[in-house]
């Protein structure tokens, strides 16, 4: 019944987009219109001045840091909305209730692996501005380690280790940390989220403590993402 209209709609959109794309700049052109002075500024500026080798991290946390604050807020909103929906749900009707695994190998291996995963996550967060990575990637790895703990040892023990209230507080506080770093820019006499413009020392290119506020923001985002992941999973596992 809804097959035909949906199919026609999709074909119509496909036709319009095919029309548009057949005249769009070809794929992979080095002189494509999007490769303009804006892009070159990011890359050249990075090479010579701000001293953050990972340009993507620099864009995310510095040039377009305001968008990233919005992005962290979207994560916060999703956790809030999901927590409000799942508050007071039992998790019983969804398949069988989630319990700890009784597989010895699984438990032993997880016990050994989790600390290393966490250290790697922290490494990716902390070195996000000098190498591939960043707060989002590292936070996901850190959250992944806690997710592994949840799946192997069950939601009850996870909540005992990391009470839900702590997770929520970490979530809100890490998001507010971003705002605080931004307000720091105003206090230093520049604009919101200002980095070098506010006189924050940028440090030596390629070293751990470099890039000014990028490092601070990355740390907050890492905690935020990790807290988001574990909060969502604990809620979905029905431990409220």
């Amino acid at each position, binding site marked *: 019944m809804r097959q035909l209209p949906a199919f026609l709609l999709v074909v119509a959109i496909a036709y319009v987009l095919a029309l548009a794309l057949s005249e769009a700049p070809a794929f992979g052109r080095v002189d494509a219109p999007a490769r303009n002075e804006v892009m070159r500024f990011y890359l050249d500026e990075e090479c010579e001045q701000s001293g953050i080798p990972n340009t993507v991290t620099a864009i995310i946390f510095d040039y377009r840091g305001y968008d990233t604050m919005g992005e962290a807020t*979207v994560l916060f909103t999703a956790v809030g909305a999901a927590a409000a929906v799942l508050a007071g749900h039992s998790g019983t009707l969804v398949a069988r209730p989630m319990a700890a695994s009784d597989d010895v190998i699984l438990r032993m291996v997880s016990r050994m692996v989790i600390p290393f995963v966490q250290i790697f996550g922290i490494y990716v967060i902390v070195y996000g501005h000098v190498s591939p990575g960043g707060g989002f990637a590292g936070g996901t790895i850190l959250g992944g380690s806690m997710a592994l703990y949840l799946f192997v040892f069950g939601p009850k023990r996870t909540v005992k280790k990391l009470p839900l209230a702590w997770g929520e507080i970490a979530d809100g506080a890490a998001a507010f940390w971003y705002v605080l770093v931004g307000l720091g820019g105003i206090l230093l006499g520049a604009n*919101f989220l200002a980095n070098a413009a506010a006189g924050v020392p940028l440090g030596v290119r390629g070293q751990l403590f470099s890039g000014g506020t990028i490092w601070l923001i990355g740390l907050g985002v890492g905690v935020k993402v990790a807290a988001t992941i574990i909060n969502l999973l604990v809620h979905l596992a029905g431990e409220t």
Partner: protein
Amino acid sequence: MDHLAVLLVVIPLSGAFFVPVFGRQGGRGYRIALGTVLLTTGCAAALLIITARGQAISYLVGDWPPPWGVELRVDAFSAFLSFFFSLIYVAVIAFSARDVPHDLNPAALRWYWSLMLLLLAGLLGVASAADLFNLFVFTEIYSLAACGIISVRDRMDSLEAALKYLLLSAVAAGCILLGISLIYMVTGHLNYAYLATALPDVAAGYPRTVLAAVALLATGYGMKSALFPLHIWLPDAHSSALSPASAVLSGLAVKAGIIALFRLFASVLSASPAVVRAMPAFLGVLAVGGMIFGALFAMTQTDLKRMLAYSTVVQIGYIYLAFSVLNPVALTGAILHIVNHALLKGMLFLSAGLIIHRTGKRRIADLHGIARQMPLTMIAFTIGAMGMVGIPLTNGFVSKWYMVLGTLEAGQPLAAVVILLSSLLSALYYFPLVIAGWFGSPPAPGQARPEGPPSMLWPVLGMGAACLILGVIPGPVISVLGEAARVLLGR
């Protein structure tokens, strides 16, 4: 003082982050929310005073100049909307203090305050965005928060409505993101001012790509603002939410898409070729559809809140229709109608909420003689209904007057006729309700329930007073709005 432009968004955001940290006990969440909203209102008022004379604040976040960094732009248009949006929020938050807690468990209640503030932050962020991608991010914040405040209510119809809204707004987000990336592909810019200068040349080289991108953006934001054939999510979502949430969703959240499109069409795409400029006219045709079919659907509803929700579809149609002629006078009317509808519909949903809170009745047929039990609430409801129809001395009349004048001035008498006709149709579904409420006989006499508590009544009556004030002395507001429309159209 320029920092106010960013604080306008940052204050409600911080409030939302505070709630799970400091608002874990009892009434603290409410106090944080109210304090935050009052601060935001003060901030918006200061911005309105600064920008009312036509001066726009351009704020460079992180001190990076426009093509590289994110720019925020607060002009008379965004400051005016921000001020009234946060003012309405004060009333809604104050109303929620008594209405919401008994419907929600403590955890959900805490997140309700947080999500309300996030919704406000998203709306204000959309109003002050001057960068396509930043616009997208704040669009997503408000969309997710809007779904969230529907689903805090633990009932099947709310959950289903929230899911439907979420999936459709994900499709809309996909369209918007694809449109943005097509535009970026051919221009290499995301900032509004740079796009406006780059687009005319680019549109000559890649006309179909630009047109497809604009069509995708219009579809996405049309869906988010419930433009006629894309409005299917709205009746369920707005009628199944808690009453204060409905007031915010119907009054404010659907307007964000309109604000985004106004800015895009009036300032970014205005210098582009005729094809792109014809798009508002197309939106106008859809708007007429919404005004007629929305009214017909509203007439057949038996549930009070569903009727109000369909009425929103109609009023969205007015705003798009007045916008589509791209005339300063009509645009003045359209912007004023954004605020007027927000006040009126907010008040109608809150008074419906009061009626439901006190009597538990939400079927239109059960409301006979309700005025004998709740006269003050019914006065507010009557002002709202009169404003919706456009009776003189209410604010609805002023905005409709300007919309009609503007459409006539732009040489579109047909549009003016549609506006008048649709007002007549609104009378057909609002007045029977009001007449039955005042003069109908209550089904069970003697069972006199007192009026709602003062803490719930004053927000509703305050909004009613605001409607009358805007209706009787519209002069100062109109002068600010004339400025806003002029700035928006770049004339």
